[in-house]
């Protein structure tokens, strides 16, 4: 793609989205610490992706009519990052902001993996390798109907070990589902290890190309780069499905979590809470009890 002055987002928008991204990290850290559960590092690697998608003007949606037929669909296939999506949707008014405080508490609809009983969430998720197939079906129906809505699916890179991802990649490539956009959160880590150390995906970009996709490779924490990529995704003249490979850092924003596999499951305790909050520009603990070891 070509970067031209018209596709470069304005500074004001970029700054406001950076502020939003910081807020999402602050809010979701609090949610996870309160619940003692949640996947913080997976969440933090895709914060800029979600914020740019939902607040950058590319994704079409209406919080007052979450099921409107003409909406673009977003499917969080790496559903362990649900906290970030909850924060974004609540901020947009899909459901009350204070409901975020119920995350992973008994009786809440905001569980550890997103599901479709929550306004704004399209599908039940939580098992990896499903989202792209669902996206193929929705995109195929849209193509048959001549509809203009698009389907964005956020896939984890570790998730691409699932064979079903490549079944759908092959299908989308064959059917030239240009309305289907896969965003790959390429943080190079899975739950227990570095992908390259136990089952490499490389050559990753070439795989998508070989399956008939168009690819973009972007810095997944650069809001201007993501905004430009999503703007390109909306280009109606595209003819193939688009894979946006977003290079990210797992745990981005909290230094002791960044790039560390052991933080896939962990929740900060004691001094870690203070350090995490400090990294996010929060000086005093929100809840003093979180200081307890």
């Amino acid at each position: 793609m070509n970067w031209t002055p018209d596709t470069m987002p304005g500074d004001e928008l970029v700054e406001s989205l950076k502020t939003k991204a910081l807020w999402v990290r602050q809010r979701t850290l609090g949610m996870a610490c309160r619940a003692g559960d949640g996947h913080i590092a997976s969440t933090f690697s895709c914060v800029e992706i979600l914020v740019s998608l939902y607040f950058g003007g590319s994704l079409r949606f209406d919080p007052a009519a979450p099921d409107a037929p003409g909406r673009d669909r977003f499917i969080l296939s790496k559903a362990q990052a649900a906290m970030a999506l909850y924060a974004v949707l609540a901020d947009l008014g899909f459901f009350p902001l204070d409901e975020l405080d119920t995350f992973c508490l008994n009786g809440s609809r905001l569980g550890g993996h997103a599901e479709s009983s929550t306004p704004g969430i399209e599908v039940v998720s939580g098992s990896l390798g499903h989202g792209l197939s669902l996206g193929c079906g929705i995109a195929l129906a849209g193509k048959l109907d001549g509809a203009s809505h698009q389907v964005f699916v956020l896939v984890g890179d570790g998730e691409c070990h699932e064979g079903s991802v490549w079944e759908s990649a092959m299908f989308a490539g064959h059917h030239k589902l240009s309305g289907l956009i896969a965003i790959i959160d390429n943080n190079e880590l899975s739950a227990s290890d570095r992908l390259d150390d136990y089952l490499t995906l490389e050559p990753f970009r070439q795989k998508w190309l070989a399956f008939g996709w168009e690819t973009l490779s972007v810095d997944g924490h650069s809001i201007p780069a993501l905004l430009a990529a999503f703007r390109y995704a909306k280009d109606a003249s595209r003819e193939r499905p688009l894979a946006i490979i977003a290079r990210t850092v797992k745990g981005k924003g909290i230094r002791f979590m960044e790039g560390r596999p052991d933080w896939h499951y962990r929740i900060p305790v004691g001094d870690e809470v203070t350090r995490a909050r400090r990294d996010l520009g929060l000086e005093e603990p929100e809840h003093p009890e979180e200081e307890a070891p």
Partner: protein
Amino acid sequence: MRAAFLEALLVEAHKDTRIILVSPDTGGFHCETFRRELPGQYLNAGIAEQNAVGIAAGLALAGRRPFVFNTLSFNSFRCFEQVRLDVCAMRLSVVLVGVGAGLDYGLFGPSHHAMEDMSLMRSLPDMSVFSPADDTVAAALVQHTVQGGGPAYLRLDRAGTPLVYQRDARIELSQGLALLRTGRDLLIAATGRMVERAMEVADTLSASLVDTSVVDVFRLKPFPARRFLDLAESCPRIATLEEHSASGGLGTAILEVLADHGLTRSVRRFGLPDRFYHVCGDRDYMHKASGLDAAALAARLVDNRP
């Protein structure tokens, strides 16, 4: 049964353009008429069953009414998680149509012997499980599942004859079962291909003065509990007959209903044994090897043998 079903589906799909036949590269020959007449409502999703069910769920989310048509084993075992999460957990109107119930593909080995599917599908919330006895019921299930909506699983045979019902018979599908024969001594509850077998057994038993009722349970879930209990109350002995593992299918469903309602009856379950078949054989051969031929069943019932 496969042909009668596809013929009925084609008729319905002409009227209802939401219907789309999704095939993971199965039944090419049998689907040919459908594909030729309605190419826009036919999708060969490739030999990728997980993706095919996920795509069907996506199509249903977009308002289509997909029928996923495949060999039974691959339409239940291979893609079970997609059926569970993508279809049932979202209560989507996807109909899974599996061909090759029980030992229908007896010659093809353990991969194609479908012995555990009803047990799996019956365990899924919001799933409707149908097991038709002949062409007539199979064809009628097309309209019934379209009108009913929600997730459904159909367990078909390749052949749908001999007929248990007349071709133009009006069957009350919403009842979930049909009483085919009335007797005072024994009630045989059967499903699928075994319904016709139950009728044969009942004829044989009449020579031994065992007066036998036969009920066709064509919907295993939701189980037609009340209607079944009404029949069970008037009969001292019950036998269940299915071409499925004796555990988890019709026999289990009936024991559950009897236990849940506190009705005590003598129940004998006849189904497939708890083992894989490492020999091949045609369906009749395999039934005989499993003690499910009419003569063996009648003898086991008369003598009360296991």
